[in-house]
């Protein structure tokens, strides 16, 4: 299957710190790709490069089989790639509709077109079978963590996006709310979107992911279908960079010394 979004040979340094080494990363339509790795493995940097927030030192950015030039978050959004950040990036003082359309408000001749925006927000939430929100005109400050995550995800799919990246979507949630969000993640993939799930939680990963890409000290340790690996293999990939035949041949941290 042709990947929807693909990064090839990406390198990124901050000053003397080489954060990403020749990273290849692919997202396939209709699949949930889990991006796993320990703290400092480079997950956040990779996501920010995909989102266009950071530039690349080298490497190619491909979308829909074509190489594209990406210079900022707007270019990425124009491709149909949306990122749902860990700290949610919602404005507490605005309501759900206002947040979902933030930065891309619909206007008519008389200013903001609230009718269109509220209707579309309602349709999007309904299409995602969201069942927990009381009213779309509720201020985001009054929502629970799971509801906020839901709104953030709905905001990402509102724009007919093709790829959605979710940064630790369940990190701060309770059991029931995690359930809702994971169901939502699965529904996104079933709609044909390419979904990237960044998570520390192996249970979540094994529950919804189709593929796993493990990062270890800025290198891709493995990119495998989830059915080919076990829970403990993934943990080894995260902590040691290899597990049996999988992984980086030699530990790069010690090899370079």
């Amino acid at each position, binding site marked *: 299957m042709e990947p929807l979004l693909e990064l090839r040979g990406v390198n990124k340094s901050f000053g003397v710190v080489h954060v990403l080494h020749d990273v290849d990363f692919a997202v396939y339509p209709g699949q949930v790709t889990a991006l796993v790795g320990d703290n400092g493995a480079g997950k956040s940097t990779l996501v920010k490069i995909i989102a266009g927030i950071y530039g690349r030192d080298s490497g190619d950015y491909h979308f829909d089989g074509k190489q594209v030039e990406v210079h900022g978050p707007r270019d990425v959004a124009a491709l149909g790639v949306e990122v749902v950040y860990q700290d*949610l*990036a919602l*404005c507490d003082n605005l309501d759900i509709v*206002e947040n979902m359309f*933030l930065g891309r408000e619909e206007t008519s001749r008389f200013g903001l077109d609230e009718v269109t925006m509220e209707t579309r927000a309602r349709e999007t939430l309904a299409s995602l079978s969201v069942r927990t929100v*009381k*009213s779309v005109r509720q201020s985001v400050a*009054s929502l629970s963590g799971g*509801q906020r995550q839901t709104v953030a995800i709905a905001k990402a799919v509102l724009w007919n996006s093709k790829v959605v990246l979710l940064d630790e979507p369940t990190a701060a949630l309770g059991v029931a709310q995690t359930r809702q969000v994971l169901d939502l993640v699965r529904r996104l993939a079933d709609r044909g979107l390419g979904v990237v799930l960044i998570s520390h939680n192996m249970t979540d990963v094994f529950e919804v992911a189709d593929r796993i890409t493990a990062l270890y000290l800025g290198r891709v340790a493995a990119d495998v279908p989830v059915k080919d690996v076990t829970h403990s293999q993934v943990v080894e990939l995260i902590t040691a960079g290899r597990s049996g035949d999988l992984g980086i041949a030699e530990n790069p941290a010690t090899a370079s010394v």
Partner: protein
Amino acid sequence: MSTDADTQTGSAATPASSGFDNDNRQAATIGDSARDYLNRLRGGDMGSLPAILGLIFLFIVFASLNDRFLTTYNMANLVIQAGSICVMAMGIVFVLLLGEIDLSAGVAGGACATITALMLIDHDWTWWAATLAGVAVGALIGTAIGSLVSFLGIPSFVVTLAFFLALQAVPLRLIGSGGSLRYDDAVLRGLSIKNVPVTAGWIVAVLIVVGFAALSLWRYRTLSAKGLVHQPIGLVVIRIAVLAAVVLGLTALLNANRAPNPNFTIAGIPWVLPVVIALLLFWTFVLTKTRFGRHLYAVGGNAEAARRAGINVRRIRIMAFVICSSMAALSGLLLASYVGKVSPGSGGGNVLLYAVGAAVIGGTSLFGGRGRAIDGVIGGLVIATIPNGLGLLNQASYINFLVTGGVLLLAASVDAISRRRRSSAGV
């Protein structure tokens, strides 16, 4: 914890609120809306309520202490005195919305009024050209402040404190110590000393009421027809009735003959009032119906979220300071119009703190993200009432400072407490 609260309120409003498909789109009755409103008050979302209660309280106190307070003559005076405070406060609302502050607005107003007066006197410019020159200088000052704040990242408190000191040099240099410029242009001075013809005043007042009613009802029809969230029709009617009572009542009051001397007739709305109302309508439209306004709230609520949504946060920040300083220029012109002259001290003293106090008392949060243009107007009335009433009581002026300072502190406390309640209630 907040989840529990959600489900409780949810089940209270709609017993079967488990599905999004039957989410509640309107508070069914006026009773429900009243309960919603009380809940919001209890949760710390006070809006302009403290200001309105404070205004009523001040009116009762001053009216009982002095019979001249409630005369139509004094009420018209109050409107004129409040004008410049309201205009500056509306400008301050924009920077407060971003969680910033502008300490230089008062002296910026003085500096801009000096420019306008010089254009009128030395260069014989017509009133509108001179006004434009003053406002342009205000916009320039705002651009400088906004750029320093957003590009260099200096706290606005420090930048505007520096401007507060530096801008006082402008009138002092241009006018000279101890001097003053007369401000007697027929139109600009007329804003404070002339009145709208009585008939014209009535026509405009009725137009405003009819316009508001038509817009509200049209909005109600559109929203309910499309099945969107809307207020119950009863509440819409009540709002129209309240607005009609206020507008028509004020018009009747100001259109009555208020001359203390029976040989003269003074009647009509002082020209300041239409100016303030026009600015209020304009900025309310900008804040609630334009993308720029929406982005202002977003930057004030969560600047990082706004940035990630593709909003140019720097531009928004600079624009807020530009609007604030331009409004300060207009406010300086109104103040000069009231006093009849511009002197090196114009806009100094407590002019700025009056305006900040007005905005905060009106319900704009010092912490950013919350506020409306009308907050500045309502708060401005409260603030203007204090020196007006105390003046009639022939109190020493130190009392005035004490009371105004106390009111500002009170308003800031209400703001801080309601913010704390909001974050715990999650409203």
